[in-house]
């Protein structure tokens, strides 16, 4: 069971995610965005960061990276595809998730712990949690404000207190099937009590679990 962590120019959370997944028994490879084949992997993570410097719109340019066709077919094949922060933004730009992410309501970058409530346990991220369960994980974004005029997005996690104006207080969104999930806060940053919280592990465990079930 192996997970591809895709690295775009400007990504910066790739090692943090990989380390966090490995620490709970996952196997990961970093895959450069110019690659075109993900067939050897059981799941994909698009990590946080500032792909292409967020020029134009977050994720707008990354979405055209050669690797993205492979990400799309992995998603179609029902493999788990997880976008964290910038990864979430890329998935929206790529049309693999509905909606888009715009600037935070208060136009300021937000880096702090937030309480997030599980609203749907059938996604690749939330399958190890209970409905209503609250986890404390760090938010770290400027464009974390999710808008979804289509109204088709499935909110699987929502902020207890709205930090950024995200519609429906959405913190994590899934496609209908639930195998593609974008989450704005960083589960990988809450994986060690020494750093403040390990409540992100239950989410990453959910992701690893879902690798097997497909």
């Amino acid at each position: 069971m192996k997970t591809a962590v895709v690295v775009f120019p400007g990504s910066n959370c790739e090692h943090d995610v990989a380390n966090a997944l490995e620490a709970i028994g996952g196997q990961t490879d970093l895959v450069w965005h110019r690659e075109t084949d993900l067939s050897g992997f059981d799941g994909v993570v698009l990590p946080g960061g500032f792909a292409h410097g967020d020029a134009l719109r977050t994720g707008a340019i990354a979405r055209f990276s050669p690797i993205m066709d492979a990400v799309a077919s992995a998603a179609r094949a029902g493999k788990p595809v997880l976008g964290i922060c910038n990864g979430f933004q890329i998935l929206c730009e790529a049309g693999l998730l509905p909606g888009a992410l715009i600037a935070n309501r208060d136009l300021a970058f937000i880096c702090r712990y937030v309480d997030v409530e599980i609203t749907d346990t059938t996604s690749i991220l939330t399958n190890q949690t209970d409905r209503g369960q609250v986890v404390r994980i760090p938010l770290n974004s400027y464009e974390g404000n999710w808008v979804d005029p289509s109204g088709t997005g499935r909110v699987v996690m929502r902020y207890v207190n709205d930090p950024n104006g995200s519609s429906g207080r959405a913190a994590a969104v899934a496609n209908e099937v639930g195998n593609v999930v974008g989450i704005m806060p960083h589960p990988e940053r809450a994986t060690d009590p020494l750093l403040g919280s390990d409540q992100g592990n239950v989410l990453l465990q959910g992701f690893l679990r879902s690798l097997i079930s497909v």
Partner: protein
Amino acid sequence: MKVRVELTRRPEIADPQGTTIKRALEDLGFKDVASVRVDKVFHLEIEGDDPQLIHRQVTEMCLQLLANPVLEDFEIEIER
């Protein structure tokens, strides 16, 4: 040729920047400001001299990359 592309944010999409700037203007004493919207403009220089062709090209650029249909509409203006 010089081409100007303006993206206009869809009315149903929130505009945090516009809202913030409106508030800031009010704080500065500009009380008559009813609304502020902030949009993006691209100035492109493109080789070639066939306006139709260039218009088609730029439309493509907008559909593919420059504009996000969820958020904004685009308007192309060939300047010369």
